[in-house]
């Protein structure tokens, strides 16, 4: 094998932009991130080191990638209307994740709220025009956040099929031509003072299980009544800040609702596949980097006075690691292709059980393999496994949360059971 690019991906699915995008991102990652990433843990609160790298990735002075989803006529790249949107998203997540999964999630989550208004067939042109300048006309990195989880409910909010939204405590009341929002959200990516724009899943009728009462409403971070707490200190993911947000009588225009009654629930379900593809891309990127590091290590360190990789028993272990990476990458791109079939006659809508349940299942599998693969690689490195100088331990700390987020493992298992076994009461 010549290099990590030769891990399998279905070449016939790959976007025509793939080579160019990867090349630009890889140059950025190798110049701006990889030489500094070992210092990111100490930079978790201030982002003195991290912020300039984000600017060069996302702002117009650098690659300008934060505008990718917006239509070209609004200054974007039109990825939201592309037949390769998911495959491109997977590649972006992979390339940035290879360098730092914390940066990858912070950057990709900026797209997350925007998918509800910028991706075919749900483009909301009025909101697209409203927010395009914020992302397309700046040299600085601009972040958005999906203010989803609530303190009391954990993953309940992502389990709309069962809860019907009745557990949501964040409320939106229409007062004239404005929504008035109240509530408390916990832990969204890009909070802790980072995001300029939130999308807020909430209810227009507390306790209701009617899906028409579920609402997705955009809220600028500087709106009166929005308060953000400081970031939490975590095991890893230093480039991704998570904190609390309180909405107290926050007023936004009525047309800041993403799609309207019923449709909001549909596009909310559609953002799940985006999060799952991003998650798999981050994990595959991190695993590709693991392979690079591990290759060097097992070629230069010895057991029984032979290179580690030339010992049959160790070879069995590292062979399995490489095999798992290969399988996970194939699954990630297969999932991405499911997303890109959304508009095709032979595809399924993004909000369908076919797409959501299968993607959750695949993300669960890839997450489990990644957690195992990193744990095993640290053990192969032995006394060097925990050493920050080898970067594998950083990835190990960072990726654990990917396995846990978006409802975690158990929600993935439930959705898989519901779909594959037609469970009625789970």
């Amino acid at each position, binding site marked *: 094998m010549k290099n990590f690019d030769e891990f399998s991906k279905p070449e016939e699915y790959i976007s025509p932009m793939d080579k160019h995008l990867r090349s630009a991102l890889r140059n950025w990652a190798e110049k701006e991130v990889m030489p500094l990433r070992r210092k990111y843990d100490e930079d978790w609160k201030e982002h003195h080191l991290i912020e300039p790298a984000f600017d060069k990735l996302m702002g117009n002075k650098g690659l300008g990638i934060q505008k990718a989803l917006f239509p070209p006529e609004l200054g974007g790249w039109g990825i939201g209307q592309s037949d390769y949107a998911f495959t491109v998203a997977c590649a972006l997540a992979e390339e940035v994740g290879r360098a730092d999964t914390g940066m990858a999630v912070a950057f990709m989550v900026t797209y997350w709220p925007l998918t509800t208004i910028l991706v075919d067939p749900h483009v909301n042109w009025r909101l697209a025009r409203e927010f395009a300048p914020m992302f397309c006309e700046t040299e600085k990195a601009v972040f958005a956040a999906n203010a989803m989880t609530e303190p009391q*409910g954990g993953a309940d909010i992502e389990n709309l099929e069962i809860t019907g939204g009745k557990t949501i405590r964040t409320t939106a009341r229409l007062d004239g031509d404005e929504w008035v929002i109240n509530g408390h959200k916990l832990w969204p990516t890009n909070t802790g003072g980072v995001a300029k724009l939130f999308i807020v899943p909430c209810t227009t009728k507390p306790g209701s299980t009617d899906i028409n009462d579920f609402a997705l409403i955009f809220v600028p971070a500087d709106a009166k009544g929005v308060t953000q707490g400081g970031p939490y200190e975590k095991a890893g993911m230093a480039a991704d800040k998570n904190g609390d947000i309180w909405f107290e009588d926050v007023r936004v225009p009525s047309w800041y609702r993403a799609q309207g009654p019923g449709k909001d629930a549909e596009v909310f379900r559609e953002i799940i596949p985006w999060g799952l593809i991003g998650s798999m891309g981050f994990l595959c990127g991190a695993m590709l980097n693991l392979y690079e590091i591990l290759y060097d290590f097992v070629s230069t360190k010895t*057991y029984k006075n032979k290179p580690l990789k030339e010992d049959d028993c*160790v070879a069995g272990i590292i062979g399995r690691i490489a095999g798992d990476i290969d399988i996970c990458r194939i699954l990630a791109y297969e999932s991405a292709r499911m997303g890109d079939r959304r508009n095709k006659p032979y595809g399924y809508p993004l909000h369908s059980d076919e797409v959501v349940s299968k993607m959750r299942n695949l993300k669960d599998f890839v997450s489990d393999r990644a957690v195992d693969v990193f744990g095993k690689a640290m053990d192969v490195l032995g006394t*060097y496994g925990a050493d920050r100088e080898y970067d594998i331990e950083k990835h190990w700390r960072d990726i654990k949360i990917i396995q846990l987020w978006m409802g975690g493992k158990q929600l993935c298992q439930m959705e898989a059971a519901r779909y594959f076994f037609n469970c009625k009461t789970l």
Partner: protein
Amino acid sequence: MNKTLDELFVYPKELVDEESKRVIHLVRQWADKEIISKRQEYRENYEKLFIETRKSLNLTIGLQRLTLPEESGGFGWNNPASTPGIVSVLTEIGRADAAIGVISAVKCVVFAATTLLPHLDKDVCDVLAPIYCADELKTPSLILPGMGTVGEETPLFLGRSILATVEPDGDGYAVNGKNMRPLNSGAVADLFCVVCADKLGRPCVALVPGDDRNIVRGRTLLETGLNASANCDVSFNNVRIPKSYLISRDGVVEQIYTWLNLLLGGVSVGVGMNFFEIVTEWSETRTIKGGTMMKENPLCASVLADVADETFTARLLLYNLAHIMSKPDDWGYSGSQRVYTFSQIIGSQVQQKIMRAINRGLELMGSAGYSREWHVEKHWRDIKTIQSYLCGVGAEAPVKMDTARFFFDCKEI
């Protein structure tokens, strides 16, 4: 939780005598009072409190001299029969803080190689006992064989590269070794216990005082966990030691591994038990699906069951090893191939089990488990660090080879 930890995570109580039980009780009180009840303060002021709590454990309670002979001022737990008591103490320490546990474990391992009956080395004991019985906190460090580098042929201990050498030098020995990575505390150690190869390539153990000016220390490492132990790479450039500081009896290196497997297992089981306490509180105060208590959901309950059964079986396995080690007449002494192999198997299994218990529990706790606030992520990082260090090189490969060698009489591996 309406049951005590010891009612849940049972161990054969008859293996631990009454005196040991009193010491174990004292250590549990220390853990609860000084660390577990003050977790937030401990987390925010970790470096200072780490030293203070180590002092209260080692000097006030006196555990620094736990395994020294009674006639030398110690507790007299230098008899194989004390093994279950020693692992119990390490479990209690690990429940509070894994880094304190690892340093305490290494201290006991060093003394096991030098003062454990019937191999009490009186000359070494006479030197070490006054130091470790004095009113000053001591930190030994352990350097084991590990991996080599391509292009450098090294003597081997069961496949692992021995990076230090020892040669006669006048009336003593000279120890050499470059860029060796200790298990713990390289930056602050006052005594190194290092596995060396003699001129014929045979493994032996040298005790090297940490203040020798021919010791070169690298920068303090940033690691996944156990950072309070302050580790760094060390080089010995012709460090001279007295003749009595070299222990070359057969099986001494195996004995070190055996004790390390047992005691680091004890530390990790303690961590697992504390994690159980935390996840119990979590699962009783969180609801899912709009109102069901988390632990009452069958899927969540099955994850909680995994946490409990991995910790439960790890503790039982560990006491089996302690029992084997406490009966040298029945099973052979702790440096024998048999007991060494058993310890490798059980040591590896215990670490895997506790790692899995925490990984599973984290799945329920989600972001709370991942944030520093709940202390769970520290346990998770500490256990992974112990596990990787214990692997030494090549993940489970060396342990698999040790096992196959013993059970199948393999000759070539």
